[in-house]
């Protein structure tokens, strides 16, 4: 094979990630159905299956992030901000993690004004918030709160938990991801980087979106905060 006929390897990467995404979507659907129907008390493998669902969702999240970042770089992502009813948004985001939360007996609470609307790319922001909630599910004691509010003309999303909070180094990583300097390591790095890129894609006038990690909030644990102009 000479160089002229050698295919672009990044294309293979992108297309096989696409293929994997299809398979994983199916696995998630099936697992959600099984875990949803199984009785936590009596089913012998309930905890294992719930954990498998969590891992599958993590892989799916990572794949989406990788694929989307690849598309951003090549101008192949159809960025489509639209008017979104936040009540719907929260309900949909919750549905992606509900089975997981049930299996871990984590209580979920949503906090937003009933008639709140925002202008953003629903698919991207769902990806960011679901990632944050999955993360919170892993570190919380038994509660997660998703709050959305309009603050100073910006839309603020908060994912809060009642766990022990983020270590100091992690909060630094959040800030670094926004600066675009240092992305830490492993999947935390990818998730934060993705979230920061999505936030910054949302612009209005001279303002850009942002993310940050902090401790405290209403539940006293870790908080992931996304702000969109």
């Amino acid at each position, binding site marked *: 094979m000479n160089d002229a006929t050698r295919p672009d390897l990044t294309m293979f990467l992108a297309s096989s990630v696409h293929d994997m995404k299809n398979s994983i979507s199916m696995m998630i659907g099936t697992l959600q159905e099984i875990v949803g129907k199984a009785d936590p008390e009596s089913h012998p493998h309930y905890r294992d299956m719930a954990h498998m669902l969590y891992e599958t969702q993590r892989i799916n999240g990572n794949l989406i992030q990788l694929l989307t970042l690849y598309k951003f770089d090549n101008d192949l992502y159809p960025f489509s901000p639209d008017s979104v009813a936040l009540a719907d948004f929260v309900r*949909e985001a919750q549905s992606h993690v509900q089975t997981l939360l049930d299996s871990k007996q984590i209580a979920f609470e949503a906090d937003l004004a009933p008639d709140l609307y925002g202008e953003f790319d629903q*698919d991207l922001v769902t990806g960011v918030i679901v990632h944050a909630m999955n993360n919170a599910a892993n570190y919380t004691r038994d509660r997660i709160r998703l709050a959305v509010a309009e603050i100073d003309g910006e839309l603020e999303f908060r994912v809060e938990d009642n766990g022990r909070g983020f270590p100091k180094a992690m909060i630094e990583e959040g800030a670094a991801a926004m600066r675009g300097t240092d992305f830490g390591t492993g999947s935390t790095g990818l998730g934060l980087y993705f979230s920061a890129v999505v936030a910054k894609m949302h612009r209005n006038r001279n303002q850009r979106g942002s993310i940050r990690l902090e401790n405290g909030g209403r539940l006293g644990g870790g908080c992931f905060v996304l702000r969109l102009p």
Partner: protein
Amino acid sequence: MTSPRTPFGGAATDYELFANSAFLIVDDFQGMRSMLSSLVRACGAGAKMIDTAANGTEAITMLGRRRYDVVLCDFNLGSGKNGQQVLEEARVMNLIGPACCWLMVTAEKSTETFMGTAEIQPDAYLIKPITEAVLTARLHKIKARKQAFVDIDAAMAAKDFLKAIRLCDERAKTDRANAVDLLRVKCQLLVQAGQLDKAKQAYESILASRDIPWAQLGLARAHHQAGDLERARDILEQLVDRNRSYLEAYDWLSRTYRALGDKDKAESVLARALALSPNSHTRQQALGEVALELGKLDAAEKAFRKSVTLSEHSALKKPDPFLGLARTASAKADPGEALKVLEQLQGTFDNEEVRLRAKAVEGMVHQQNGDPVAARRVAQELSGMLERAAVHLDSTSTREVAGLMFATGENGKAIELLEAEVMNNPDDRTLLESVQQIFNKAGLDSQGAAVIEKTRGEALTLMNQGVLLAREERFEEAIAAMRHAREKMPKNVRVLLNAAYVTITHMQRGHFDQALAREARKCLLEANQLAPAEPRFAQLLAALEALAKDARH
């Protein structure tokens, strides 16, 4: 009675949304089909209300048998039609009504699957994995949107743009959930109604509070329509710079450059858009045309070929890429290939207009490749076909035929065709110039100028006669004069609008008549077909609607 339990504690309406609806699930993977079926069942749908199809052909068959309320269709259906093409065919063949909710399912969001520029669009895109809550929320949203737009869509279908605008305004006062869509549609309607200043104002006031890409695109389109091409270009350049995957903006930017006469830029902008999304047959066709005009024959051939291949399974396929391909082959001195393509074209489309257009290109192929005898034979055949034809050829084809007639010595026929073109478009400078060039090419410069001058004068007299008579309140004579003018110039927009104007004014003086109202409406709709966004159209149609309404009371 207790309300049925629904997922995620939704209201009973969630359940009703599913319980009484017929679903079609289209996916090429068995596993996905059964998963989506059980998802829809979990939402409350009855098992007998769910059908599945494994590919596009099967889906079309199913859609022909039953009226579905909801279609969940995967974009990627393996070989054959993709989801977008199934949707297009279903709409074109009227297999789904306006109330049907079409949800396009994709594994990921990309410029390839997200057909922001397509003429026919699904009601929503769903990205896998889909949950009950996602499906329920999206269906609610679509239903609410369809509900909000019932009257507006009806007014739009009747081309009553001013009424549709009024309805958008009224609805927007109370409907927060659809406020943005209503505003967007209203702005588009203002452009369609030719109220460009109002449209610009509306877009600018949106942009004053927020940078919204669709509003920027809309503003550019309004400037384009108003003839302020430089302004449109500047807005669009900035738009694609900040939104690099906004394909529709590239299409308009290319159109704007073409209108500005900068074909090189028009080509490079299209090439950029195609690098991002190569699978649009209309965009490939547009690229082929510009490349052909620039004499870049290899590029033109490649683009036309792609357009033909891409539209193979599309219900919206057009003869144009075949014709482009034949013209390109001819320009490459390959008449055999050109004629083969024309044959292929007529095997794909079977109608009179296509036969005429193919014939015109066939003659040109012979003429261009040194076979004047064959060209002359084709020209004579074409003359006969045109005499008998029940359809009018479009302006570009007519000019092409005229060129062929000159080249083969059929000057009388050529002049007759060009006179009709001038009669129909006496105010269109670009067209008049192109007619003059056809004369020049035949070495008939001064005769051409004289013919154009004389024909234009004749047209203008006929066009204004009716209006002058109407000014003297001689309405019956005015209507007769306009009928005569329409016979002479059936595609003259001003004649059609003036005819409608005198007829409507006559009826406004207390002479309402069903037959006259029908005649006026026919004139208006023909004018709108020829020249969309003509402001007089919207005003006259509104006046006619008011008359018809009074007559009913």
